[in-house]
């Protein structure tokens, strides 16, 4: 089914991709069942807090240069916005000037829940325009706005004709999707619907790289094969987004992040999506460059780069491998990224004792088997016996980690590396996924694991004094997934 970017919103991943939050078993079982879209998402009848779509929408959109964001919500939804002051760090490592974070909240109050919030939204859009003079204004919806039923489209139409800039509604109401990554898709949909322009001229050396706000790990490498990356969406400009349609191809540095954006761009503007799993681990990076080269007619240059890079990092990797071989790792992160990390640590000869992904999409928007990162992980590196899907849930992870006692925990998300740290397990948060990609990515990860292993006294100090809120019943309970059964079968 083709993606229609003219529709006001994109369906959630729950419906579109059959996303699930609860599974435990072998990785191969999940993969096999997913290919038939047969994984049933069990109800978790005790749960700890998850995250929401608006959170993912903010990750992608708050740092767009020369855009303003109006968050149509009570203040709580906007309240952690100060962490986006980190755009300074993102800009510094990319050698560009930091943009101002231009976000305001309509601060929905009781009156709006009674009389509707359209009036304050209109005023906020106008205020955002006057205050920031942006090239585009994005409007985030919220649980409150969604339930009240505010007609955001009417505000968009009116403001567009009045202000003459794209007004981009992002439908990212938290309650609508149990899968927070639906918020990524909501932002891509809005951008494709309102900001991306029809291509004026194709730029054969331009490659869209859908990424987070981390280091630019690509420009230097791409230069050697005569390509230029267009790093989107965080910390990119509105103009950079507008010309996405002119690029030679699109790469998503994480399938969980860009599966929808890249597919929609391909189907609506003919910009092909690179259909190979992302460049994490040396073998996958080789493969990725080869596919990229094929798509952009640069095979010779790419082969030269692959050879040179392999020779350059080989001795470093070998050195690290000696230290890391046989160490027992647990991987706990977002869907595809966990598959990459598993590939990377297995390349180091480490034993993967278990993997937990924060959600699981049973398919991707293109349905392409080569973008099934779980399938690729199993194909290239083997099965994982203790595989689970869990939207954070420290109470479950506490039990798994206590039982398996891995030497190292590798994560990427708020509030989850902490669980390992509290249990005395050297834990790292592989947060900047760009620096972990390509050849230097493997070097970087190896160095960081060794660094954490060397700091094990800190983890020990914490674990010796920590208090957990869990009951002795739960601590002695055999099944970490006790609450994942259907309520009626209990």
């Amino acid at each position: 089914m083709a993606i229609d970017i003219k529709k006001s919103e994109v369906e959630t991943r729950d419906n579109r991709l059959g996303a699930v939050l609860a599974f435990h078993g072998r990785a191969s079982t999940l993969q096999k069942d997913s290919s038939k879209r047969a994984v049933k998402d069990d109800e978790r009848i005790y749960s700890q807090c998850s995250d929401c779509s608006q959170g993912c929408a903010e990750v992608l959109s708050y740092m767009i240069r020369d855009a303003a964001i109006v968050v149509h919500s009570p203040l709580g939804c906007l309240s952690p916005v100060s962490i986006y002051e980190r755009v300074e760090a993102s800009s510094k490592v990319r050698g560009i000037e930091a943009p101002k974070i231009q976000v305001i909240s309509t601060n929905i109050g009781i009156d709006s829940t009674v009389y509707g919030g359209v009036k304050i939204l209109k005023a906020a859009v106008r205020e955002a325009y006057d205050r920031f003079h942006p090239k585009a204004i994005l409007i985030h919806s919220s649980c409150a706005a969604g339930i009240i039923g505010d007609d955001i489209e009417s505000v968009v139409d009116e403001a567009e004709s009045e202000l003459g800039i794209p007004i981009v509604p992002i439908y990212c109401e938290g309650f609508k999707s149990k899968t927070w990554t639906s918020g990524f898709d909501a932002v891509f949909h809005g951008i494709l619907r309102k900001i991306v322009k029809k291509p004026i001229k194709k730029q054969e050396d331009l490659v869209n790289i859908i990424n987070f706000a981390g280091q630019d790990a690509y420009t230097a490498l791409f230069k050697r094969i005569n390509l230029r990356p267009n790093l989107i969406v965080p910390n990119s400009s509105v103009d950079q987004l507008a010309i996405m349609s002119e690029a030679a191809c699109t790469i998503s540095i994480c399938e969980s992040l860009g599966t929808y954006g890249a597919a929609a761009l391909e189907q609506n503007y003919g910009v092909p999506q690179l259909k190979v799993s992302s460049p994490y681990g040396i073998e996958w990076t080789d493969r990725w460059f080869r596919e990229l080269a094929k798509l952009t007619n640069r095979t010779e240059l790419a082969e030269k780069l692959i050879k040179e890079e392999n020779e350059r990092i080989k001795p470093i990797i070998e050195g690290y491998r000696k230290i890391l071989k046989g160490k027992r790792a647990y991987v706990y992160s977002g869907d595809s990224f966990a598959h990459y990390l598993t590939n990377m640590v297995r390349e180091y000869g480490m034993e993967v004792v278990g993997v937990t992904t924060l959600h699981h999409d049973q398919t991707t928007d293109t349905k392409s088997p080569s973008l099934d990162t779980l399938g690729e992980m199993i194909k290239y590196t083997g099965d994982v016996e203790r595989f689970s899907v869990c939207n954070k849930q420290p109470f479950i992870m506490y039990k798994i980690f206590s039982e398996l006692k891995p030497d190292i925990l590798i994560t990427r998300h708020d509030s989850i590396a902490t669980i390992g740290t509290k249990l005395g397990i050297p834990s790292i948060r592989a947060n900047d996924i760009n620096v972990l990609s390509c050849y230097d990515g493997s070097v970087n990860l190896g160095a960081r694991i060794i660094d954490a292993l060397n700091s094990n006294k800190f983890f020990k100090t914490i674990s010796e004094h920590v208090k957990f809120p869990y009951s002795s019943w739960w601590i002695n309970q055999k099944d970490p997934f006790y609450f994942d059964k259907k309520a009626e079968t209990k």
Partner: protein
Amino acid sequence: MSKLIEQPRFSCALAAQTTVLAIPRALPIVHAGPGCASKTFLTLSQCAGNQGEGFGGGGQISSTNTGTKEVVFGGENKLRTLTENAFKVLDADLFVLLSGCTSGIIGDDIVSIANEFREEGRPVVGAETSGFTGNNYQGHELVVNSIIEQFVGDVTPKVQKGLVNVFSVVPNQDPFWRGDLEEIKRILTSIGLKVNILFGYESAGVFEWQNIPNAEFNILLSPWIGLKTVELLKKKYGTPFFHFPYLPVGGKATSLFLKKLAAFANLDLEKVSAVIKREEEKFYSYIVGLADFMSDFRSNIPNDLYLVADSEYAIGVSDYLVNELGLQPKGIFITDVPPTDTIKEKILETIETLGKEIREVVYFESDGGKIQQKLFELIGSSKRAVIFGSTWEKIVAQKNNNMLIHLSMPIVDDVILNKTFTGYTGGLKLTEEIYSGIFKHGTIDKNVQVL
């Protein structure tokens, strides 16, 4: 009508889950959308000087993570099941059910559900903290009052002489709350009182809360937050309260607080005076030790005071900086929204007593965008500004390379453990913070004027 906010300094009512977490062995159970607990926690932890999740915060907060099904069919049963299972998984002394926007708008009755569990003998309290109902100052007050009404309940007080309850800062919203409460407890204990501090590492937890009705009197150290609580306690248990309308900082204010308190409660004046004398002697010995530094480095020390904080902090800190350290107040921005004009007037009256020059530069503003604009305007090209505020003020400070001292939410680029800006200890800490800040800010030499 609600007001647009850029660069927020506080959160929504649900963020008062932090108030629950600040009580040892109390845990919140959140009935809200999937992101509410984690987002508001992020605000009051990482954005409050990277305070950790502690015993049961962060990802560990129980949540119904309400979805479309609950919005359409109601979520009360999901909350009941979650709470029952929370009793199995968690080991805590008190659970507080908190509602978010979804459950609030669809009308789930969280307080009745809490009542049902209490009738079964479970320690459960409910509070309607939907984000649209107010900010986390109001949420804090509501949670505190709900615990008193529902958990402490209707008991006959057995008044213990010298026992006091302290109501003051909002946990985490005051990023220095842990250190501040420790200092308040230290000072009050030193004059012979037995203190229910109620939050933080020096609280005995739920036991202290159950002991609230037995206090001889309550102490409210705040302009307005907590006023509803002490009024409730007066009505409910007949406990009188002593209201000191700001957090005292430094020698003068802290001694004034103790003297007024002694007069209110008929404390042993000799004993209180002896404590004041001892504390002041130590405090001012350190301050006098500044004389050399201040005299030698005077021309490199910025003296124009700009301050952005809530009323709890703004008043006491301005008082100390202006009246004891001699800084020149140029712009004092009060960021919390006093709920009524009367309260606003009272705050201004208090400030008036501390000096006309402070009163003349006070602005009430919760929209950070407007604060920033006004700060740029007031500071102009001056390089002699010292700004006390949040991470947001970095933008203003960086412009002319002026100095920023972290004082108020949000603080994302600092790690706060037991630092305090309250009382005698806090006065010294604040002093150290400003003047060592000058060196951290860039190399200076007394023989080279850089300002």
